[in-house]
């Protein structure tokens, strides 16, 4: 299965042209309103394509705990949409005084974070009554004192919680580039990261573009998938052949035809 991240500039065209994609994926929070046009549009999309709900705000790694209202709004949306899959990130955004960073901030990779993530993933799965996929992050900072390798962290999280991994191969390349690897070496490093995953844990693969800026690589989802990311994707496909793949494009969104070309390439 190969899908497309369905964003506002393409709402109308996708419903009108109904191109051959296997599923569409949306950001859950964009449809949290009690009513209105966005939700109605999503339900129209749901009548044409299977839908996957991908969250960016659950804040699974927050030491302040999950926002019960957020979880309830997600549960309501899941009930309305009956999605193929529900996912969010191994990140935090919510802090103690009720503030939300509206970003995917990095968590530490240690036993304490793992225990926290296990609790929260369990809480979400209990409420939604379905398994969750948790995405690996791109990050521009790390925490001092990490004690676990990231693949080991996800292997354990998936084993112990029953969740799956949403493997973002673009994030792996971005992280490797920001860890100091050249482009070719970053692809090799990302493939090695994939090799450390347990069999069967990947429930979906994300593909996106990134920006190579002076002194930093930014995960902006604003361009075509890079050659290095395609290389890691092909590598991951050998091990996780059945995992659905998705093209994400969130900034400077181009014509739908461009996204469909990328979907075709991912098939």
């Amino acid at each position, binding site marked *: 299965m190969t899908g497309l991240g369905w964003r506002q500039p393409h709402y109308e065209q996708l419903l009108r042209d109904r191109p051959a994609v296997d599923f569409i994926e949306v950001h859950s929070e964009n449809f949290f309103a009690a009513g209105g046009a966005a939700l109605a549009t999503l339900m129209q999309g749901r009548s044409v394509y299977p839908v996957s709900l991908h969250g960016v705000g659950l804040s699974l790694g927050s030491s302040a705990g999950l926002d019960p209202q957020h979880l309830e709004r997600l549960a309501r949306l899941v009930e309305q949409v009956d999605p193929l899959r529900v996912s969010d990130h191994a990140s935090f955004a919510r802090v103690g005084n009720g503030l939300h960073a509206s*970003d995917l901030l990095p968590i530490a990779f*240690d036993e304490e974070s793992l225990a926290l993530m296990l609790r929260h993933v369990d809480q979400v799965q209990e409420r939604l009554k379905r398994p969750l996929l948790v995405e690996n992050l791109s*990050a521009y900072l790390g925490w001092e004192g990490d004690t676990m390798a990231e693949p080991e962290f996800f292997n354990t999280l998936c084993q112990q919680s029953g969740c799956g991994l949403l493997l973002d191969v673009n994030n792996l390349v971005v992280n490797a580039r920001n860890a100091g690897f050249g482009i070719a070496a970053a692809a090799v490093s990302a493939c090695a990261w994939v090799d450390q995953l347990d069999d069967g844990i990947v429930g979906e693969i994300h593909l996106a573009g990134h920006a190579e800026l002076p002194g930093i690589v930014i995960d902006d989802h604003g361009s075509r998938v890079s050659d290095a990311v395609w290389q890691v994707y092909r590598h991951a496909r050998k091990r996780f052949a059945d995992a659905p793949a998705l093209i994400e494009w969130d900034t400077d969104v181009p014509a739908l035809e461009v996204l469909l070309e990328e979907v075709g390439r991912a098939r």
Partner: protein
Amino acid sequence: MSLAAQQALLDAILGRGVAPPLRGLVGIEGGAARGLQAYRANAKALAARALASVFPRLLAELGEVNFAAMAWVFWRAFPPKSGDLADWGDELAGFLAAQPEMDASVVAQTQLEWALHEAERAADATFNAESLALLDGGDPQCLRLMLRPGTALVGSLLVWRRGWRAMSAELDARTARFMGAQLSGASLAASLEEGFDFSNWLQDALRQGWLVGVEEI
């Protein structure tokens, strides 16, 4: 990782407090400071984009550069509190009102744009025609009008949703008082003033889609 450390990272992104024990990534020139700056740049862009989608007239009034600067100051003063950024912005009018020499019309415009935004996100409702029979002979002290979700009064402007789009219209003072009373949950009897033409109002309400039904209280 402690809550204090997470709070400290968020504060550092907002440009205040002491950064927690962060590790810069060796491929990023400038280390942890540059990493923080990347998160800050994202938050700034997000602040401007989120507010621009809700307050297009304020954006036109201030211009892109001033609007983006204002959005970041507002973000730092009143950061988002939920994972749905569409929830963020209700405090903007009050924030602007507190700025020195702020034009009152800009504040009023901001209040109106927020109300329009809320109306477009409000729950969908279907018109309960049968419930109108309660108006025929029912005790007004025991009746209340059910206005379309998202309907609000901003000064003398009524905001409501028609189809998917929010609209606004100026009300005369008497009608505004009536709508205000109904929006606050008062009974029909308590909302009706001497001389208020309820029949005429009802026709308008049905035509414009303000009313979705009548209920007993």
